[in-house]
């Protein structure tokens, strides 16, 4: 367990106090988001300004969100000129005008609302990938993963959503890539219930309860053990949840 010290007396905005949801948008439109903020449990000055910052890689957008006593979204919540799948930083500021942060929630991951109201862990984005068909983009490393597909292939997003053969080949490998990024490259502490990759570990824990090795820095053996754990997770996902070989056979008609 990683211990964290708070030298600044800054209050922590817990995930249960905020929610951010990014609305589905056409490829040529900017998405917009909605956020719910309730800081009533933090005993902040009611006139403390709230600011929400969307960020990914080195881009960011800021939105004034009323005050702690009266959160108020702005009229424009479009994520204009932002990379896809940003995270959010939510700040309550000192009302004395110094803009010192009194309470903070960092790296809040949004949920995504599709046209049908369903929510997804993995965001899909059409991009010009030259000759590649798909890839998983991790942004600056621990950003929300995005499945990118080549926009030059007509109907590619529909293929991802509906084509059984494509999904059978790609989805399990996507899970393996994401777990590898989270647990080996980012060395995410799985006991951190609110960290960057907590949603994905929670997703896997729903179907795979094998004991997870404790990763030590520069320890090749534990990395090997972690790779085996990830293989086990993908295998269990395939066997118990996704059944890719069945999907593939059905799709190709054999």
């Amino acid at each position: 367990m990683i211990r964290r010290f708070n030298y600044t007396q800054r209050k922590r905005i817990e995930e249960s106090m905020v929610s951010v949801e990014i609305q589905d948008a056409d490829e040529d439109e900017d998405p917009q988001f909605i956020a719910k903020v309730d800081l009533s449990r933090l005993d902040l000055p009611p006139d403390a300004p709230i600011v929400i910052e969307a960020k990914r890689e080195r881009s960011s957008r800021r939105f004034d969100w009323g005050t702690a006593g009266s959160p108020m979204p702005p009229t424009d919540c479009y994520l204009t000129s932002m990379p896809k799948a940003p995270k959010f930083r939510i700040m309550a500021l000192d009302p004395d005008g110094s803009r010192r942060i009194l309470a903070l929630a960092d790296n809040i991951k949004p949920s995504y609302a599709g046209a049908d109201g369903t929510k997804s862990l993995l965001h899909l984005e059409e991009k010009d990938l030259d000759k590649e068909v798909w890839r998983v983009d991790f942004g600056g490393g621990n950003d929300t993963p995005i499945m990118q597909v080549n926009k030059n292939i007509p109907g590619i997003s529909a293929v991802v959503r509906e084509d059984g053969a494509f999904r059978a080949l790609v989805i399990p490998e996507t899970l393996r890539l994401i777990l590898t990024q989270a647990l080996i490259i980012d060395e995410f502490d799985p006991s951190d219930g609110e960290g960057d990759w907590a949603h994905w570990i929670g997703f896997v824990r729903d179907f795979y309860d094998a004991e997870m090795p404790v990763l030590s820095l520069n320890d090749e053996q534990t990395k090997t053990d972690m790779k085996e754990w990830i293989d086990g997770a993908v295998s269990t996902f395939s066997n118990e949840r996704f059944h890719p070989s069945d999907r593939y056979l059905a799709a190709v008609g054999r």
Partner: protein
Amino acid sequence: MTTHQSLRLRELTDMGIRDAKDYLASLREGKSIPFPDALLTNPLYATEVEPAVYVTQQQFSVRRDAALYLTECLSPLPASRVIENYRLWSWLGMFYFDTVARKDADGNPRLGRDPDVAYVADPAANSQAKWGETRRFAHRLMLAYEIYTHHAENAWYMLNEPVNSLGRFTMRLTSAPEIFRARGIVELAHLLYIDRKTGGMRSGWGWTNDVTAPTGSLPRLIDVLGQLYMNYDVYGMSPEQILPLLPSEFDRFKPASAVGYS
């Protein structure tokens, strides 16, 4: 050189972008070839933008000239269709190529170390396949437009630079979009490092070959702002709010009225 004095605004097609880059590549190889005028009007290479907007050849001696003209011309279009529209900026880069590109002694375009993206954006040429902000800022006309749109005269030094250059001060501030977009930080950098009387950079503002940034320099400012970010809403602060928080290494650059803050 384009023979068109005034044209309806267009966007380059994939073929237009490819041929524009071929033209730039030919110039780099030292070939003396005429400007491919068809790029600007042939529907294979360029498609008209709706609503109709017309642009006219201009001389842009400094960024401000380009920024003011383009801001006015592009105002009928929604911002969302301007900012990230690499096809539109690629067409503009070609339409104003003769104005923006530097020239050799014979008056021929001289690209030097300018990347293609200074004139023509091609996301596919980038391994990340992104027309992200840091690449957008390399486009000479887009940079002028963005500086003026975000900062107006608070970025007066950046607007005074030649449109065909990417000075080190501007390069440093645009290398991180979150820094560039913070109005207070760009204004603060002007306040600290530009001498308003002479219009030039103050000595020691920060560009050296040393690995370690000089004390009080712009690279140090960006480091310090990164530290303040942990405890302050740095990107939403005014220069007057940031100045008192800067350590004494910045005193020699602070305006006289602000030194007493630290």
